């Protein structure tokens, strides 16, 4: 009975049994699906720990503009003049932002609504970055497949899915340009490499569109427009010029440039700015190369060709230099911007542009943060480079160049670790994949060898030689197994490290602060929103709020009030004016504030809670930036023997400047910690130096429950009689 039923069953099973190739495809697709989901859900820690909210500073501006775009449509958005920021200057929002992110989010929102998913735009914004991170894993897979093989592609997808360097900018709620831009960057690179490998016009067209999307999304497109010419140049120098390269580069450059000009913020920079000139130079060089190639084909005489080559190259270089020089002199081509300089020279910003140097994410990267963000990838990266050099091709040259240049930039600025992450993941994936493949091949071949050796015995001379080989095998095999286990151990360590970093370090929204209470319970400091919501509800609609620029975007987005300066630091003088007001005495400051129509002043103060990134700790930058424009403000006035302090030994100007007064107003009566005198500043661990603060022109309007945000109202001028 059983045999009768078993027979058709086994037949049925047999018919379901897949061929090896199908099995491989199935495994690959399911791994990719799992990686896709993993990349998404690992970024949801912040939603689970806190709530579905927008994080940090810049994302609030993006959210606000996205909201505007959903409510008013694209044309209003494009022509939007924002009166609520940079009072009294205002800001032409449509012309000063990269619209890619907002348009993407609104597109997703519209599609979902078309499919009758009644989601709120906020949810779309919160989940945009994880969604694009998932897409990046797919691109990484295809990229890895293109430059090495499918194994490397799969490993690259897995590595990039959980790499902390990428997660730091793409957790749920981190609604920033980088969220979509890394996807666009890698996608453009992938399409370009594909175009170079195939010489197909279609792929290079696709890469031009990828580039367009990147330009619309993030200012980091400059990296693409410089890396690709550099890569082409390297290929030309190493004698790897081909028709494929010619087609790929020319199509991508010309179309990409034309498309990029459609973005208002970028405009004609591709032909007018120094940062984009390398691409144009290489474009012309390509034409010269093509021409020379043709001449070489026509001329059979090598001597004549050599002479011709010399003349042409000199002419081309001379013409190019003259054109560049003329352009520079006439001002048609703008010189490199400070930001670009500061990328090439890490010390530049510190000396010349304090506003760039003041941002914590623009600091040079410490080794620890490399270790934190890359973990084992840092060691795998050189190994991967070795494998790439061993099997040099157009594609591997590209990834090597991408890896090396972006690693340099990552060393210059902390935030550029993000740009290097895909390259590091891909190169490390090559290392992992190649090593594991070599080891498994070794293991497999040995198994076969052992089998043949045992069956054939020691009858023939061939067999004996195999037996000799076999004697060395156990050691090799064990070594291979040990190495495989080692690799497995390292990779699992990597996975646990990534999860830990994501959950502990990169998933806090920084709007809501969480701390552990005395009994181990979770205490939430929601002071920022308390203050912003108070502003939104209880101040006049046209009130102007002055604060340091860090909080500008949040005040406009959450508080819905006009600010003097915000995070789009386009006008250094304006920021310096605010810096000057905050670092002057109150009666000097009131003049500046009246001239700016300020109604409220907002400061962030961490003395009660021990929150260290408050305005007192940022104050020296305000002095520096203010002093950079207004020489009345001198940094040494605020220091005592080059030391920055707020206690009794502080400089007199420090103790009486507006920022000090606003932060510590009536703080001297406050007992913050048991066993310490009143007015003990927990963030800096000192008792404050000036406890008797009187305000003449300002009055306390609101202080949040943990004192983190303090808002003051500017009193109207006194009646003259």
């Amino acid at each position, binding site marked *: 009975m059983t045999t009768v039923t078993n027979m058709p069953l086994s037949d049925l099973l047999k018919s379901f049994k897949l061929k090896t190739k199908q099995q491989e495809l199935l495994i690959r697709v399911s791994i990719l699906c799992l990686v896709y989901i993993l990349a998404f859900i690992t970024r949801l820690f912040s939603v689970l720990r*806190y*709530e579905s*909210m927008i994080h940090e500073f810049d994302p609030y501006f993006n959210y606000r503009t996205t909201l505007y775009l959903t409510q008013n449509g694209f044309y209003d958005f494009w022509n939007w003049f924002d009166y609520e920021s940079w009072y009294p200057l205002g800001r032409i929002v449509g012309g000063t932002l990269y619209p890619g992110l907002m348009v993407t989010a609104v597109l997703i929102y519209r599609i979902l609504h078309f499919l*009758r*998913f*009644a989601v709120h735009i906020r949810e779309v914004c919160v989940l945009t970055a994880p969604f694009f991170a998932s897409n990046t894993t797919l691109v990484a897979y295809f990229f890895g497949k293109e430059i090495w093989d499918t194994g490397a592609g799969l490993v690259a997808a897995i590595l990039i899915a959980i790499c902390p360097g990428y997660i730091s900018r793409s957790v749920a709620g981190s609604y920033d340009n980088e969220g979509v831009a890394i996807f666009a960057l890698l996608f453009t690179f992938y399409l370009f490499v594909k175009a170079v490998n195939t010489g197909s016009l279609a792929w290079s067209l696709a890469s031009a569109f990828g580039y367009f999307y990147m330009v619309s999304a993030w200012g980091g497109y400059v990296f693409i427009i410089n890396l690709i010419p550099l890569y082409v140049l390297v290929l030309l120098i190493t004698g790897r010029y081909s028709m494929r390269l010619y087609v790929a580069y020319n199509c991508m450059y010309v179309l990409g440039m034309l498309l990029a000009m459609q973005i208002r913020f970028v405009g004609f920079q591709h032909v007018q700015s120094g940062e984009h000139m390398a691409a144009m130079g290489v474009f012309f060089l390509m034409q010269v190369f093509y021409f020379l190639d043709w001449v070489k084909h026509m001329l059979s005489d090598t001597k004549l060709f050599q002479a011709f080559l010399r003349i042409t190259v000199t002419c081309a270089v001379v013409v190019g230099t003259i054109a560049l020089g003329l352009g520079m002199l006439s001002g048609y081509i703008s010189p490199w911007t400070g930001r670009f300089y500061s990328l090439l020279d890490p010390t530049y910003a510190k000396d010349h542009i304090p506003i760039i140097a003041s941002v914590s994410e623009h600091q040079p990267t410490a080794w620890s943060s490399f270790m934190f963000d890359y973990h084992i990838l840092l060691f795998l990266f050189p190994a991967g480079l070795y494998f790439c050099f061993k099997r040099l091709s157009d594609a591997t040259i590209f990834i090597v160049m991408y890896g090396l240049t972006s690693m340099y930039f990552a060393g210059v600025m902390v935030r550029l670790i993000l740009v290097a992450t895909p390259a590091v993941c891909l190169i490390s994936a090559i290392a992992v994949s190649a090593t594991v493949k070599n080891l498994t091949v070794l293991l497999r071949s040995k198994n076969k060898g052992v089998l043949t050796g045992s069956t054939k015995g020691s009858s023939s001379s061939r067999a004996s030689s195999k037996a000799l080989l076999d004697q060395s095998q156990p050691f090799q095999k064990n070594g291979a197994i040990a190495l495989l286990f080692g690799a497995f151990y390292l990779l699992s360590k990597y996975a646990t490290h990534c999860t830990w970093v994501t959950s502990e370090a990169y998933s806090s929204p920084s*709007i*809501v602060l969480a701390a552990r209470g005395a009994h181990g319970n979770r205490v*939430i400091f*929601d002071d920022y*929103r*308390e203050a*912003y*919501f*108070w502003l*939104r*509800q*209880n101040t006049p609609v046209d009130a102007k709020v002055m604060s340091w620029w860090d909080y500008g975007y949040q005040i406009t987005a*959450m508080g819905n009030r006009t600010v003097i300066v915000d995070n789009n630091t386009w006008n250094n003088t304006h920021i310096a004016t605010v810096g000057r007001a905050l670092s002057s005495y109150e009666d000097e400051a009131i003049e500046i504030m009246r001239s700016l129509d300020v109604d409220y002043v907002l400061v962030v103060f961490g003395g009660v809670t021990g929150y260290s990134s408050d305005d007192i700790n940022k104050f020296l930058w305000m002095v520096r930036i203010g002093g950079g424009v207004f020489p009345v403000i001198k940094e040494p006035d605020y220091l005592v023997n080059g030391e920055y302090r707020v206690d009794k030994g502080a400089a007199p100007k420090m103790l009486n400047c507006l920022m000090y007064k606003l932060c510590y107003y*009536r703080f001297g*009566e*406050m007992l913050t910690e048991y066993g310490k005198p009143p007015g003990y500043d927990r963030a800096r661990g000192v008792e404050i130096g000036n406890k008797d603060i009187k305000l003449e022109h300002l*009055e*306390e*309007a*609101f*202080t*949040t*429950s943990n*004192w983190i945000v303090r808002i003051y109202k500017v009193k109207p001028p006194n009646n003259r009689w």
Partner: protein
Amino acid sequence: MEAPIRAREILGFTLLSLLFFVCRSSPSHNLLISNAERRIDLSSHIVKVYLTLKVENAGSTPTSEILLAFPPTQVDHLATVEALVTKGKRKKTTIVHLDVKPTELPDAPNETKYFTIYLANPLNSGESTTLEVLYLFTHSLEPFPAEIGQSESQLVFYRDSALILSPYHIKQQTTFLKAPSTKVESFTRVEPTNRAGTEMKYGPYEDRPSYSFSPILIHFENNSPFPVVEELVREVEISHWGNLQVTEQYTLVHGGARHKGVFSRVDYQSRPSLNGVSSLRYLLARLPPRVHSVYYRDEIGNISSSHLRTDSRKSELEIEPRYPLFGGWKATFLIGYGLPLQDFLFESSDDRRYLNFTFGCPLLDTVVDKLTVKVVLPEGSKDPSAVVPFPVEQHFETKYSYLDVVGRTVVVMEKKNLVPVHNSHFQVYYTFKPMFMLAEPLMLTTAFFLFFVACVAYLHIDLSIPSMSPRNLPKFRLKYHSPPEIPQITPRHTATFVCRRLPPSVLTLHHPTAGGGCHLISHLTIGPPPCCIMLSLLLLSNSHSLEILVEHLFVAPSP
């Protein structure tokens, strides 16, 4: 031109009212109030007035209508009027609620407004009955001073009349006013007037004629916060999968004396009994039992300061606004919660379903200026109708939620000036076929099914446009025997010729011709040795016989 017209109008009105006056039978003279006692509770910002009337029918005809009169300034703030009669004696008393309806009387002096109480049994002549009337006023305490600092306490005015305004003659009346504390700054004296602790007694006054009025003004301390919900939108969404989702959108304002000047956190935290005593620190919402997934948020995110206490009879949600509300400060927020459907949805006898839910605002001691209740019925429900115990404005809307095609019917009910007394039940009746419940799951399954079908189809169908390039043409492999000779191909589709020991990569095929409806394209691929020569043939007709004549096979000498 205008003046004569206006004069004519006035004349017309006068004539008209005269006419009415003549025609109207006046019931007021038939009744008189033998004893009236009024107790006014001023302890919170909702003024509660308990009125006990002993009504006597002095006329000859039985009457069942009793009029209550209000001055026009009070009517605007009047939230509700209830009347009841106690019947029976001692422990067997039963309470009978009476109908109360606003009435317009044409000859009302000084625009007095009226409410009519309809007695259950007409009052015969000579009989008397005792009525208990309760009415509530909102926004009737006027803060004075209108702006106070953080450390000051809140003083308010209350205006009323020492004598009860009534269309009837009142033989004896007394009014008691209860202030929240003993701090009464001043009060108007209309003798006899007494004050004992928190209570002020006006009267007793004897034999006052109808429409007597004697304004009084009381200035006293009231430090209770005045939570006023300017607008509340409650949305109740019915899902027949077993859940009732309630979303309530509040615009809350502190209606007391406006905050003036500084808000000092250090004073507020260290001396809470002296500072901001009238500030609104928290609110209590009473929610139905078995409430789940409660949230409390506003436009910029979750508000973490809320506590939920549940037991089997009720749930209490204690919410704190983001910041303490001082007078004039505003806060908007949103409360949402889910409820089990079986507690609120029932089937009526005529096979219709009805939702039974509370109408008012769940916050305790709150005045709601404008309330909108929206009941979102499931998609596909028909004939909605609402039954509300008091008059409301009604209309219908359509709402699109997840996966809706035709949209859901929304029953919208609006009412102004609500007090907690209005938290009574209302019903929304509708018909619904359970088949509609399956619409959305079916839609989803279909969509997924179609998606997978599309995937399968995409993998199995070659959608590429057939191009004329030789690669895509049917190929015939000729394997060619050495030594070279002119091959004759038998009429078969695949003719194979083996080619051995030819020098690789130097074969060229010259002028091949094909006959028999075939065209030979001179496309030649040479594989690695042993060489295969691939000839691509384009089949022009569907002939079974095929003959190819290769004229020259030229073997080039290797360099």
